């Protein structure tokens, strides 16, 4: 693979990774939390706890 082709492929990979990270970050704004990464029990109740 020529250096130019390698540069193109590398930049494409970077673009994919950056897009995925950005999408992941934006998706978390809709459902804030760990996103299941930490092993905590996934909450079934979307609403936050609060006193009446």
């Amino acid at each position: 693979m020529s250096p130019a082709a390698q540069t193109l492929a590398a930049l494409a990979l970077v673009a994919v990774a950056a897009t995925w990270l950005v999408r992941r970050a934006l998706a978390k704004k809709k459902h804030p939390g760990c996103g299941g990464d930490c092993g905590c029990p996934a909450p079934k109740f979307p609403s936050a706890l609060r006193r009446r």
Partner: protein
Amino acid sequence: MALPSHISSSAANPSSARTPVYALVGNPNCGKSTLFNALTGLKQKVGNYPGVTVEKKVGTAYSQHGQPITVIDLPGAYSLAARSPDEAVTRDVLLGRRADTAQPDRILCIIDATNLERNLYLVHQILDLGRPVLLVVNMMDLAAAAGTTVDVARLEQELGIPVIACEAVNGRGLIELKLAMSRADLPLARHAWAIPAAIAPAVTELQASLIAHDRKAPLVARAEALLLLTDQDSVRVAGSTPLHARTGEILRTWQQRWEGEGTDWAGTLVNSRYDAIGRIAAEVLLQTGETGPTASDQIDAVVTHPVWGWLVLGAVMTLLFLSIFTLAEYPMNVIDAQIAHLADGVKSAMPPGDLRDLLTSGAIAGVGGVIIFLPQILILFFFIGLLESTGYMARAAFIMDRLMARVGLNGKSFIPLLSSYACAIPGIMATRTIEDQKDRLVTILVAPLMSCSARLPVYLLMMAALVPGDRVPLLTKVGIMILMYALGTVGAFGFAWLFKRTLLKGAPPLMIMELPPYRLPRVKDVALHMLERGWLFLRRAGTIILGISIVLWFLSAYPKAPDGTTDQQQLAQSFAGRAGHLLEPAIRPLGFDWQIGIGLITSFAAREVFVSTMAVVFNAEAKDDDTTPLRQAMLAAQWPDGRALFTPLVCFTLMIFYVFAMQCISTIAVVRRETNGWKWPLFQTAYMTGTAWILSFIVYQGGTALGF
């Protein structure tokens, strides 16, 4: 098994056209999650301490005929008169108050045979609901070992519902339970309870209002009326439907009247119920052997002793870290060699170029730098699983409570703080067991100070640079690691003390904690927990850390410097280098340069990203003739004037910084959700990062002044 043929209610029983829904309820630590896992085949976390389940979980079991049955595992509760948000979830689901959850068709109630009387209180309240109930008497083996047995047939007769003896841990009684759950018709309880005469008119009036205005079924309305009279500080969660104004008015009128008369209405109701339970317990509890101090009691005499208890805790911690350093060494070397082999393979297969650099210096170096710590993560969680499974964790809570009470922390804070050693997020969610909102908030604010497993790779990398080679005794390394964990714990207690006296003033409540009997660890559960955590660690390495490593490679490789510049000059003028240079004035007083600054910025996504960032920044390409390339690359790093960058003092300062800094965006998001706003997570980030900076400054400048 012969089941009694009492009255059955077709209305209350699920229709054959849809899947029946069972709610699984019981006191904390009576084996609910173990039974839930046994019934559904799921792998929910179980632990030999109260408060493991803080949210409902749903699974599917199958009857003996292969019919699906939905099972909802609800948080443990001692009573339907909820005192904490997790108990309120249980109460509201059972009462059909939740707008987002249909009322279960049937209730599967599990009780601990070793503590029958206390467990029957919740059962007694549930029977008031008028729903079909199945009762599981769990831990019959432990009761027998303690010299008592439960006359199951007599209990069935007394309550009028099917009762199944069970040992959920080893699956005994599960077939009988599934047979009972499969029954089309379940009997309604024959149980009758005479409400004290002084309270009865109020119950009748409230019941009528709940039927008329809140559209409750008669029996549920009666049960709810009783709860309203004992639930003086009703904890509600979002999603539960509020009471009608008229019902509230009736309640207030009666309370005012009783207050005027000096009647303790709640106490009267509770005592009356306990009298009824006492009569049942006297009939069904049989002494089968000597009752004296149990084996658990004898062990507790040492393990919870004011002096010996601390020594045992210290010994357990030392053993844990010794194992992390010694047992993990060989598998770490194997992983390191494999990563080096992979990098060499890529290098030999591809000509020089950006893609090859990305794969070796970005992806492989970044991910490899983190996954090398997998064996240590597995050992950490194996030990935590063992301690949870045996019941030792509850004893550790008991010992720590003396200290926690002095700083004003709620005793129930211990389990959330303990969970935070693994990850702050489940720890923060576990604060739902704390009744007092101020105590809960204090615990949320200090939980991320406990050293989570994501800090472990950072500590270990710094340890490798701080105490290189075999020159330093193993026990010194163990001592430094214990110091880091102790610093986080002391910091959490110190800030809790400060918050309880300033921002969140309040008297520390009494702690009532159950010490579960010691049990032999279930190797399968411990192994599953360990493997689950290991898998999550690998998943993070293969997703977010890989993604960040790739992007970081770009940021450190672009814009390209003119030909002939050194790697160091290329990094300095790259995007990442410029960001690091921007941060450097703020961190230079801590002994950190712009390269470390890049790591501090990226590790805000996840702390262990610091390690992969160092691997990318220092271009630590794996070499097969060197098992610790990153450490050597870091040791070779220098300031422009030729001074070593990673001196022992700088490594130690970095460890101190990571002990206190809030470097975790996921934790911030969870705190925002749990506190309903940005005020507290922003405050938390500010106070933790500020403390990290100040303490790092003191350590570095103090150490420099002392000649280190």
